[in-house]
């Protein structure tokens, strides 16, 4: 047996992975080789050092810290989902509130009837509409400034109320955790 092979077998012997015949072969070599004897003693010494080392106990706060971080992460996730839902809801509400105005606008400019009747000329009409839309919007904004302001105010009130309710619910959740 060569020293290189003997040294490889030493590691396995320490882990109880050699059979009787292999152990006898290794012992025979080690007994006759000073360098391998020194190596074997060193490996045995290291093995004993590591085997006797204690398991380090975890500080008791680990559980509390993990649970706190989990709760915070859940809160952040809920806040994100809730915030997104709230934002989308607000936009939907605003669109609903503005829908009659938009429909009225489209009807007044003749675009809506054209869209309903269909046909290739619709595209031409839409392009014509887009060309004059800015002018029409300015004129209509003057006419509908009061209902527009009222609708915007209502949307804002609804949004603030929902935000307030959401923050209250979040605070209660945090108190529970």
């Amino acid at each position: 047996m060569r020293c290189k092979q003997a040294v490889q077998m030493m590691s396995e012997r320490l882990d109880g992975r050699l059979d009787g015949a292999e152990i006898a072969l290794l012992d025979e070599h080690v007994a006759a080789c000073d360098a391998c004897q020194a190596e074997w003693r060193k490996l045995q010494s290291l093995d004993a050092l590591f085997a006797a080392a204690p398991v380090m106990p975890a500080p008791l706060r680990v559980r509390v810290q993990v649970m706190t971080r989990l709760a915070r992460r859940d809160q952040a996730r809920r806040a994100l989902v809730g915030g997104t839902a709230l934002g989308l809801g607000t936009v939907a509400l605003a669109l609903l509130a503005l829908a009659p105005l938009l429909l009225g606008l489209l009807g007044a400019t003749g675009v809506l009837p054209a869209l309903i009747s269909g046909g290739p000329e619709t595209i031409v009409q839409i392009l014509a509409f887009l060309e004059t839309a800015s002018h029409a919007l300015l004129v209509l904004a003057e006419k509908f400034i009061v209902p527009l302001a009222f609708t915007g105010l209502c949307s804002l009130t609804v949004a603030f109320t929902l935000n307030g309710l959401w923050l209250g619910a979040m605070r209660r959740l945090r108190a529970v955790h």
Partner: protein
Amino acid sequence: MSDETEWIQLARKGDQVAFGRLVVAYQTPVYNLAYRMLGNSVEAEDAAQESFLRAYTRLHTYDPERPFRSWMLSIASHYCIDRLRRRRINWLSLEDEFARPIRLASDNPEPEAAVAQREREGYIQQLLAVLSPTDRAAITLLYWYDYSYEEIAETLNLTVSAIKSRLFRARRALAKTVQGEPEYAM
């Protein structure tokens, strides 16, 4: 059904109380692994927390046929390996950590046995620090968890022959490190 199986099932459904019980059951094995791999208690504590958080988010991938302990230690060891790889090895701080002079201040005397234990602990961590992250994980799982080569291979996603050669290589590196140093009599 064992308590642990029940906790795992509940935790998978989002029950944080049940997961808290799993944390209590496994905090010491996970912390010890992190401590042996990272070499200091502050980082070990943070790594243990992070490992549990990762485990919680990956609970749906846990195979109930596999021991939960192995799965948990696998997450922790991979996290520590990644962390060690990311960390630029700061030998200076390692020396600070382990070569800290042992205080024998007269106002707070330590029993001799405690001093010897502390010194031995520092020496062990100093030895582990010379190993590559994966070799360190293999040695830790072998000595502190009595894992077989097969279990270490499963935990570290390696083959048994890779573990065999890694352990051999690690022991050779450790033996070279202690060359000329006084042996710690057990």
